[in-house]
């Protein structure tokens, strides 16, 4: 009686998130109705704005790339039993690493710049995650609080660097100069053009492929390697891990380094692919969307990719929505994001209990 019945795997990974999403959309629909607009029209506009044209699909997938990276980051930490709220700061500092490589390697060819930029971004993001990780592992400092603090410290540090050190001379806005063309991430529409397929020009770029590769590597690591197994054990039951010869503090640091590295790759999409320079606050909240994406995707790479595309669609559709429905704007997407986090994360048991009962009745009856 005290052991909770388990949901079948497809229900756990597919049905439950879908129900949570539906509930989030329903509640958002109520809010839209309160604002005096029709929720159904809003949903149609949202869907059309996100997937209605080549341009919107391109933008949706471009946004989704960011969320895949941060979602993977949050998920890896979660499997180790840690809450990485610092993905935003880690992405920010990771972008610094990527940008520095792009700026310093001036006229080097792309195939030289790319691996170094990936390494630099990942290393910088990991480095930013290191101190909170070490403090949790060695001093027991709550990683949630330290990572939140480090988000703010990152913001202050980057503002200082962009305003005083890295700014392009003679310019007012705090940005670096533009990268050399060798550091531009190839846009997907150009790659498709080489194959003879025409696609509208959007910021959607090769980093998406890198993100998918990262997802595959994360899957391999967590479910097919010994270290991934150790990570999951430490996350589920630290005491049992010690008995198995696994060192939880080491796992903590390792998991957070990997998490920070994944978040740090955000610059590949945003800076090398779209902005082609380093600028203030370029993650733009992607670190927090990553939390929603990881929760919704049940911390599994496939779920994360799907949830990331969903949130990319919400972002793209949301900005289109504000054109046609002046009363509803992109902030509504943030509301949906919050509701998803609430329902998928904090109140995940809300729908699980009746669903489990439903399945048990089906099996038992």
């Amino acid at each position, binding site marked *: 009686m005290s052991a909770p019945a388990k949901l079948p795997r497809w229900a756990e990974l597919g049905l439950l998130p879908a129900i949570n999403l539906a509930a989030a959309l329903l509640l958002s629909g109520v809010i839209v109705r309160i604002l005096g607009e029709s929720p159904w029209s809003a949903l149609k506009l949202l869907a059309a704005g996100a997937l209605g044209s080549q341009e919107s699909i391109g933008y949706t997938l471009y946004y989704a790339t960011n969320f895949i990276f941060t979602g993977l980051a949050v998920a890896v930490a979660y499997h180790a039993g840690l809450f990485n709220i610092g993905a935003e700061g880690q992405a920010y500092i990771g972008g610094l690493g990527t940008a520095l490589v792009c700026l310093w390697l001036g006229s080097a060819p792309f195939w030289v710049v790319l691996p170094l930029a990936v390494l630099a971004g990942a290393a910088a993001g990991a480095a930013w995650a290191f101190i909170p990780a070490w*403090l949790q592992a060695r001093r027991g400092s709550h990683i949630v609080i330290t990572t939140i603090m480090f988000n703010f410290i990152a913001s202050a540090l980057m503002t200082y660097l962009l305003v005083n050190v890295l700014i392009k001379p003679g310019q007012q806005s705090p940005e670096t100069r533009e990268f050399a063309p060798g550091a531009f991430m190839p846009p997907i529409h150009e790659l498709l053009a080489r194959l003879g397929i025409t696609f509208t020009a959007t910021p959607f770029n090769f980093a998406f492929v890198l993100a998918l590769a990262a997802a595959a590597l994360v899957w391999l690591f967590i479910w097919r390697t010994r270290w991934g197994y150790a990570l999951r054990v430490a996350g589920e039951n630290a005491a049992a891990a010690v008995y198995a010869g696994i060192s939880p503090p080491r796992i903590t640091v390792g998991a957070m380094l990997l998490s920070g590295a994944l978040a740090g790759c955000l610059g590949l999409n945003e800076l090398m692919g779209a902005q082609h320079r380093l600028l203030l606050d370029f993650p733009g909240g992607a670190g927090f969307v990553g939390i929603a994406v990881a929760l919704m995707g049940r911390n599994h790479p496939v779920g994360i990719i799907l949830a990331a595309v969903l949130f990319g669609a919400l972002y793209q559709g949301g900005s289109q929505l504000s054109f046609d429905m002046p009363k509803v704007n992109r902030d509504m997407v943030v509301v949906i*994001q919050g509701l998803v986090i609430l329902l998928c994360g*904090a*109140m995940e048991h809300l729908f699980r209990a009746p669903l489990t009962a439903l399945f048990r009745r089906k099996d038992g009856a």
Partner: protein
Amino acid sequence: METYTLIVLLLAATIRVATPLLLAAMAGMFSERSGIIDLGLEGKMLGAAFAAAAVSAVTGSAWLGLGAGIVTAVALALLIGFACITHRGNQVVAGMAVTIMVSGLAPTLGLAWFNLGGQTPQLDGPGQRFTELAWPWVEPARAVPFPGLLYAELLGGHNLIVYLAAALLPFSAWVLYRTRFGLRLRAVGENPQAVDTAGISVNALRYQAVAISGVLCGVAGTYLSTAASSGFVRDMTAGKGYLALAALIFGKWRPWPTLGACLLFAFTDALATRLQGVALPVVGVIPVQFILALPYVLTVLLLAGFVGKAIAPRAIGVPYAKEK
């Protein structure tokens, strides 16, 4: 003499900046001492700020705004409580979720109702804001440096909520340490099992703690939009909720050290504005961003154990489930 005036003005600014921090930190204290991590401080303050400014703009009364702010923050707090206490959900996630939700909902409602890009209308009518209270003989006192200036700027000249916050601090300390309710609340945060065995409802106590947190956040948020500014602007809390949490941790979850932490953090904020571009004797010009980051760095140092030990309430973060 100029330095003296400067210091007095700096301290007065510190008090004004510390007020919302203190209120939010007290709110966090009640919630966290009962065992519920309070990451929703930011969201509750923001929601209250919006509600207070909106109601004040529409009704013309700051007091009604205060009421609306408190009601909103309490509603948000109870939502978090519902997720964490009744549904035993993850408290960190619940707090973050509500904060994110409010950061989107407030500008959305603001845009729909007032059509000003997410803001509320300026509160410029009489009675729409909590303005500086005029103490007697302030003008003649200002001319006398000591103690006249102290009286005029430091003691007097603040708005009602500042004095309210100053009164709420000892009151909160008294409630927490000198009443039966406070004792039970602290017990629930350290050993809910024992409280349950004594026949007292753990969940009811936690709900009450969370509701109190809502009330205090409501006052804090109202202060931001109707006293410190004249209206709601998106993201106007700007991380103050997290700063208040940092102050609470820095103050080791106790009222008076938390007050010290709030004043310290507020002082660095006031100092940052004053020291912008000013060359100091040995170090030269300190970048303003470094000063602004100081509270966060200090908190990390505290959590690392370099500034003494910060021990959280023992049962914090763990949803309570009756053993069968």
